[in-house]
């Protein structure tokens, strides 16, 4: 189905080859997981298969690439025999409704209108998209990826390629995507998935291919999976093949309509919810308030009249990492924006017992955003670190860079770094900002095992420096490593 023979590839802007001597054969109907540490070339391997290399990205290609028996001549040709799903569900949509998105490829390939309508109806039924309501941008991440998969196979390609499809998904979103992949596999679609998270693929994969330095370093077939130990995975720098255990972290003290009471889970009865939450909270709030940190009181936010966040009271202590979890739409990002003074709200925010105005909070808060390109302002790594660093922290610059694996890049332009490196740079600036409140918003999307650990160390350092550290994350691997407290939010009905 797909054949890569002794392929070598270097991006035009990069001096070293990202793919070097890659040999890989994928058979029809097979499900293959391509994994490996950051920079091992797994995304590039996928781009070779859908022709984005060399028809979209510039660089130098050697070796042979064949898809469905043919060499790739242009993107539309390979687009007819492969479908592609990318990391960010929302960015790849061209339209705003499910049916137009499904029709998009068929329209472009010149399919007759009545055939398009018929096929769109079939796919809506097959993927049960009729049960999703509203515009694409209003769906949850998992639902969006379900639509993205459906839109990628509407024109009937025998192969689906997925590039880190879960990196922005919640556990529920991952379950949603897993069901879609199982369905595609059962109907005979060839699946190639480049991924860091492996646990959800254990039951699906026929083969796991581990890449290192641009070539295949190891291959494990399905019957070898049971023998793979945690130790072996760690050696390869891979994330665990077992589903992360539900972490048991002390609940942060807080209550209100947006806060999921600590002792009840959604499956428990509703009536015990309020009581459980209140008893868990009251004594702790009084005791911890003395230790410093942030106290939220009567925080309410609404968008267009619809309430999105309602916290009666919550305490985020200084010196520890508080994880903010909960499903999409529970108000996690809104809470971060309230804390940072970027969001209008009613109620008050206190730091160490003193009320803080919104502009004051903007000066006391640092955020590591999900899309870090938005926060890189200068023309070199050193300049970026100097911008907004406090003098007493500036001495730590070298240590922080080394710890985050960035010490060789100090004169590079921040935008020339890889995605993971850019993210670690923003983490470094947050570390050196000396701010009292530091918020990490999904810092681990697309991060491998080793960098998960260095990310955790940095957050720990910031917390030990006396800051209030908030970690917004879906990533169970990261939560297990880093969270000291958990503030679990729920959508307001």
């Amino acid at each position, binding site marked *: 189905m797909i054949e890569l023979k002794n392929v070598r590839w270097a991006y035009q802007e990069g001096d070293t080859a990202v793919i070097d001597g890659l040999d890989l054969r994928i058979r029809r109907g097979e499900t293959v997981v391509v994994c490996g540490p950051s920079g091992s070339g797994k995304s590039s391997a996928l781009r070779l298969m859908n022709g*984005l290399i060399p028809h979209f990205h510039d660089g130098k290609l050697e070796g042979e690439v064949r898809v469905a028996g043919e060499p790739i001549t*242009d*993107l*539309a040709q390979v*687009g*007819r025999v492969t*479908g*592609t799903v*990318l*990391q*960010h569900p929302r*960015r790849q949509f*061209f*339209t*705003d409704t*499910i*049916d*137009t998105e499904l*029709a*998009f*490829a*068929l*329209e*472009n*390939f*010149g*399919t*007759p*209108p009545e055939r*398009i*309508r018929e096929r769109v109806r079939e796919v*809506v*039924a*097959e993927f*049960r*998209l*009729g*049960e999703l309501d509203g515009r694409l941008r209003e769906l949850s991440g*998992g639902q969006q990826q*379900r639509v993205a998969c459906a839109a*990628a196979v509407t*024109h009937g390609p025998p192969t689906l390629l997925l590039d880190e499809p879960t990196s922005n998904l919640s556990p529920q979103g991952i*379950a*949603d995507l*897993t069901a*879609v992949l*199982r*369905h595609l596999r*059962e109907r005979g679609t060839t699946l190639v998935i480049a991924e860091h998270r492996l646990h959800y693929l254990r039951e699906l994969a026929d083969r796991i291919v581990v890449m290192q330095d641009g070539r295949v370093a190891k291959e494990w077939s399905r019957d070898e999976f049971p023998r793979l130990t945690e130790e072996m995975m760690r050696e390869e720098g891979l994330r665990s093949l077992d589903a992360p255990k539900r972490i048991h972290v002390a609940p942060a003290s807080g209550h209100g309509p947006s806060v999921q009471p600590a002792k009840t889970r959604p499956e428990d009865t509703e009536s015990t919810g309020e009581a459980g939450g209140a008893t868990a909270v009251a004594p702790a709030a009084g005791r911890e308030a003395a230790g410093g940190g942030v106290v939220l009181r009567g925080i309410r936010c609404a968008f267009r009249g619809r309430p999105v966040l309602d916290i009666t009271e919550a305490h985020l202590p200084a010196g520890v990492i508080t994880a903010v979890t909960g499903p999409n739409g529970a108000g996690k990002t809104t809470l971060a924006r309230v804390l*940072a003074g*970027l969001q209008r709200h009613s109620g008050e925010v206190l730091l160490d017992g003193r009320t803080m105005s919104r502009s004051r909070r903007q000066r006391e808060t*640092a955020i590591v*955003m999900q*899309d870090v*390109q*938005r*926060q890189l*302002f200068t023309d070199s790594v050193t300049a970026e670190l100097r*911008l*907004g660093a406090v003098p007493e922290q500036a001495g730590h610059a070298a240590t922080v860079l080394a710890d985050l694996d960035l010490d060789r890049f100090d004169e590079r332009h921040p935008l020339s770094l890889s995605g993971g490196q850019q993210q670690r740079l923003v983490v470094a600036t947050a570390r050196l900002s000396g701010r009292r409140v530091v918020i990490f918003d999904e810092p681990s999307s697309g991060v491998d095992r080793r960098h998960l650990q260095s990310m955790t160390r940095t957050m720990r350092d910031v917390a030990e420096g006396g800051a209030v550290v908030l970690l917004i994350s879906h990533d169970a691997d990261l939560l297990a490593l880093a969270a000291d407290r958990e503030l679990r939010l729920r959508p307001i009905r």
Partner: protein
Amino acid sequence: MSGTSPQLDTTALGVTVPGPPEGAVSRRTLDPRTAVAILLAASITIMAPGGLLFVPAALVAGMLLAIAERAWRRVLALPLAAATAAAVAYLLPLAAPWPVLGIVGVMGGFSLRLVAVAGIAAHLIETMPPTRFTAALRSMRVPHAFTVSGSVLLRFVPTILAEARAVRDAMRLRGLGGWLDMLRHPVRSIEYFTVPLIASSLRSAEDLSASALLRGLGSQPHPTSMHPPRFGPADVVAVIVVAALVTATLLWEAGR
């Protein structure tokens, strides 16, 4: 169900609410060609000399379109904005006849014309999915190069606006967004704003164009459309209403 049935097994998905699938294009929406024609006609007449005469007609048209779209906020905002601009243009110079206010008054007059056209443009942007817009342009025999880039532009404007807001937030948190800073180092402030904006927009653009090209955008000389544009009752109503508005304006002018 899995295995035998061709349907996706969603029991694991946690979504069970049945709802109607996204239906065909509603009969209530205008054909893109009608909307574009009304917008063009309104812009040309209103921006031409003496075009002020047609401002009330365009405002009424914009409000009617907003009502059809159920955009209640715009139904109210349009006349309010127009009234403000008109007050600045005509009442302010009367109240205080200073030369500086004269300039402000002229600008008010321009804003009034702009508001009148913007009401109709807003309807087009809000209701027209990029693919339908392209289909309409294609059926008007607009060259390929314009239809593809036009639809990409229509798709991308909201993305850039969202990125700009996020960059502004990031600047405020790094202490770069203050007015004082902006006045003291205007060039540097612009750089701090534009560099990340371009970088993050490019990244989204890369994903979008990769996904669009792989799904064949621009690959065929004759792409098709799931719902080929067709004039319907809504277009007839729109044309009658526009004709009535124009006639009323001309009669009123003749009667003065």
